């Protein structure tokens, strides 16, 4: 096996002798990559970051409803994050049982798993406090005149997301407590009787059910997928509406689809468990719900696509990212269908196909939407634009590279290459031909990293030196642009805004400008 180029030389001999990773270390990286990106990366950024900054501005609120709970939520997240990251320095390293922490493997794993559970309890508490704050803020602090059907899509999707966090996370908290009991107090919630580990019968009381963990975990983790994607769709809807200069096509279908999507996401979880010895009744039920839940996603995506029809599109950097989101999320979503049907899932389960599917949803999907959001709301937060040229280099570089990284995973997965093998399963005959893709994927990953440098430089440079922007930097209709200065002061608005119209009144015939802000009073022309 070849050592990892460049980076391999800097890894410690204990983890990667001669630059070749040991399986134990690879497992830690795999488990922690998933945990960090999902629970400490995307959710805090999409909900805690964008939600916290943009949502109160868009509804005309001076702040979140409970500022101190907001703070508590942040610190719970911070401590949880520190616990997670510190676990790398424990004997045996960080958690290494996959981000799903399946039992019994996780119960018998090294001490890093205990820290993982403690970290998860803190992160879950953080999400919980944050989500109830979001719901209360949206219900209670909307500006006068801002009825629900006048809310920007982003706020709607944050509301649905908050409900998912509120009601889906506690079962994982319960599951984490049970697994903690199994690891610390010696109970057997997840351990069957007579479990044999390394040739020895484990001295546990037995009688537990390993599938119980999977049920509780996926009860959270499937809604979690929608927690990752809904705020991203919201950002894309905002950026799109602003840059097509016409009302979004199908506001109401999008809203109702999102609500339906949120509801259905609670009854699809066992499609992750088709290989656990599931009978036809149960698998038929979950296949059906899974097919049903794909419909609202398609409605939302179609509405966004159709909005482009006949528009005079401004190809700004945020718009490029938002546009790229549409086909990328489309690929991610459509490749999910074979995974939701038991016959195909049995072949594809735990192969790179799954990795490719999920990463198309969250990497060129959610992450691109988050980039769109950063470029779009940067002038609101700082009063300056980000550099367009650097932004476009960042976009095109990322767009090309990210597809080279993830698309071959579908080919590898269809060939049967398994995930979670430190050597990529090269000892198996079926991986011999598919493994050759690893090389271009690896190079593209390095290049992808290099293109992010453009973004990082652009971000910090623009804070100080970027072109100054007016308070309504993009000629937008929503309140955060129309009524608040950039950056917004403490209390957000100089005077509380009043709303008179719907969220996306762009290019309304007879109006002097091609946008009519939500807080512009009705005139005779409107009648």
């Amino acid at each position, binding site marked *: 096996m070849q050592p990892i180029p460049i980076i391999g030389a800097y890894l410690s001999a204990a983890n990667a002798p001669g630059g070749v990773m040991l399986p134990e270390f690879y497992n830690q990286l795999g488990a922690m990559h998933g945990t960090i990106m999902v629970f400490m990366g995307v959710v805090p950024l999409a909900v805690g970051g964008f939600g916290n900054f943009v949502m109160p501005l868009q509804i005309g609120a001076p702040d979140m409803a409970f500022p101190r709970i907001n703070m508590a939520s942040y610190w719970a997240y911070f401590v949880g994050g520190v616990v997670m990251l510190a676990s790398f320095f424990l004997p045996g390293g960080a958690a290494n049982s996959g981000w799903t922490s399946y039992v019994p493997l996780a119960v018998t794993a090294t001490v890093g798993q205990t820290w993982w559970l403690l970290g998860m309890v803190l992160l879950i508490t953080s999400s919980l406090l944050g989500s109830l704050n979001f719901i209360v803020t949206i*219900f209670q602090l909307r500006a006068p005149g801002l009825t629900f059907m006048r809310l920007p899509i982003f706020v709607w999707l944050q509301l649905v997301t908050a*409900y998912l966090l509120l*009601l*889906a996370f506690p*079962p994982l908290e319960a599951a984490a407590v049970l697994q903690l009991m199994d690891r610390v107090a010696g109970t057997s919630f997840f351990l*069957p*009787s*007579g479990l044999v580990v390394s040739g020895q*019968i484990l*001295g*546990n*009381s*037995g009688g537990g*059910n390993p*599938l*119980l963990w999977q*049920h*509780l975990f996926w*009860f959270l983790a499937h809604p979690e997928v929608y927690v990752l994607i809904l705020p991203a769709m919201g950002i894309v809807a905002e950026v799109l509406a602003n840059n097509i200069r016409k009302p979004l096509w199908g506001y109401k279908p999008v809203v109702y689809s999102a609500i339906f999507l949120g509801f259905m996401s*609670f*009854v699809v979880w*066992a499609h992750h*468990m088709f290989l*656990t*010895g*599931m*009978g*036809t*009744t*149960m*698998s038929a*039920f979950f296949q059906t719900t899974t097919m049903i839940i794909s419909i609202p996603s398609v409605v939302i995506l179609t509405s966004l696509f159709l909005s482009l029809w006949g528009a005079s599109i401004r190809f700004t950097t945020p718009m490029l990212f938002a546009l790229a989101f549409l086909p990328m999320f489309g690929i991610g979503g459509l490749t999910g269908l074979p995974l939701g049907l038991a016959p195909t899932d049995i072949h594809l389960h735990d192969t790179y196909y799954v990795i490719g599917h999920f990463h198309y949803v969250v990497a060129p999907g959610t992450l691109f939407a988050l980039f769109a959001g950063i470029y779009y709301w940067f002038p609101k937060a700082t009063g300056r634009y980000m550099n367009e040229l650097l932004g476009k280099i960042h976009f095109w570089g990322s767009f090309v590279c990210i597809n080279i990284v993830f698309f071959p995973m579908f080919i590898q997965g269809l060939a049967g290459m398994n995930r979670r093998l430190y050597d990529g399963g090269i000892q198996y005959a079926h991986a011999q031909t598919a493994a050759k893709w690893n090389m271009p994927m690896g190079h593209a990953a390095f290049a992808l990293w290099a293109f992010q440098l453009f973004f990082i430089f652009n971000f910090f440079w623009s804070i100080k030196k970027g072109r100054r922007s007016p308070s309504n930097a993009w000629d937008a209709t929503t309140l955060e642009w129309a009524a608040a200065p950039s950056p917004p002061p403490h209390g957000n608005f100089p005077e509380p805004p009043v709303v008179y119209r719907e969220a996306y009144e762009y290019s309304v015939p007879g109006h002097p400008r091609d946008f009519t802000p939500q807080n512009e009073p009705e005139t005779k022309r409107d009648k």
Partner: protein
Amino acid sequence: MTEHGSHDVGIYYKVFGALLVFTVITVAVNRVHLAIPLAVTVALIIAVTKGSLVASFFMHLISESNQIYRVLVLTAIFFFFLMFLPLLGLFSTPAGTEHRSPLTPATHATAEGHH
């Protein structure tokens, strides 16, 4: 502050009495040693009644805003899914397999003997 000048607290004592009575009943029923399915049914009916009394009167759900009802209905639905869908997995298995009791009682006894 005096919007409810004379707050009716009588109802709270009545509910208190009812809760005590139901607690005594549920313990008394237990002493009769009903068969498990019947015992579960009776105990749960009593518990749900007691719970409803607490929620309706102490938590004032009986005259709460619609907003709260909507939240609770949603929670109740998901609670139902969470309670019973995993259970379905225990009974819906491919022909010839079973999730229950992976070991025969005999081997189970030897496994027990190890600790």
